[in-house]
């Protein structure tokens, strides 16, 4: 298993077909669970980078229930995905399938989100299991696991400062 720190997050590859990402939040797990499963809250944070807005967030939070997310970015860029809940153990664990409408990797995926609290802080781990290694690698693009990122920042700097 490879582990790589990317900013405040930790990326790892628990197996050949998985990518996991962890981040610690300064809040009890009940709040995190709500923030991950309530449309009102999800719209305030998920995918809200560089001007992207979550425009659709529909959640039927029960086993077999479906969810659907869509985002809009600058220059009319759009992204959307959805899936079905497989397991819900509030406020500790959610398992759901995930499929992008315009996927860049083959097959679907199953995401497991866990909330583990210790002394008032909660570690959220989002592990995604892909159909096969090829799909996983297509998502991961190798930089995080191969150590490319290690020498990467420096290289990027060099390139950026080239005339």
């Amino acid at each position, binding site marked *: 298993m490879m582990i790589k720190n990317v900013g405040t*997050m930790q990326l790892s590859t628990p197996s050949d077909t998985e990518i996991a990402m962890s981040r610690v939040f300064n*809040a009890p797990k009940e*709040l995190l669970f709500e923030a991950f499963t309530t449309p009102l809250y999800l719209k305030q944070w998920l995918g809200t*980078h560089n001007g992207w807005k979550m425009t659709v967030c529909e959640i039927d939070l029960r086993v077999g229930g479906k969810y659907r997310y869509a985002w809009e970015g600058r220059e009319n860029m759009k992204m959307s995905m959805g899936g079905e809940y497989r397991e819900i153990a509030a406020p500790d664990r959610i398992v759901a399938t995930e499929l992008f409408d315009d996927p860049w990797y083959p097959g679907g995926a199953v995401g497991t989100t866990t909330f583990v609290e210790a002394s008032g802080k909660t570690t959220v781990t989002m592990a995604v299991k892909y159909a096969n290694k090829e799909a996983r690698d297509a998502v991961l693009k190798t930089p995080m696991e191969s150590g*490319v990122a290690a020498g990467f920042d420096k*290289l990027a700097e060099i*390139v950026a400062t080239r005339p």
Partner: protein
Amino acid sequence: MPSAQLDTTFFALADPTRRAILARLARGEASVNELAEPFAMSQPAISKHLKVLERAGLISRGRDAQRRPCRLEAQPLAEANEWLETYRQYWEQSFAHLDDLLERMKDSRAPQPRGKRTTRTKRTPRKH
């Protein structure tokens, strides 16, 4: 979104010798001999690395048959970095917003100061 070109770029960058070669070329073009010098490696071994870098479009080779100097091509590297940066930004920014949201959630649920109790605590017996 990621493309086959990006795959090739990341594969080429996955090796420390190849990264060192690129770092050297960032200072200016160099021949295979010049590139092989700092590494305890044969010229054919270096040539192999150069082929991978060339295929990835990260370097180009001069036409001078004798020397065939290598030079850095910045574009694929910039694209690869853009992808990594986009990925990092996506989650960093999302999580920063989540941090803010959690603070607001905590605030709205915190016990209110005396005399300002909300409906959430209306069943709490009041003193006197």
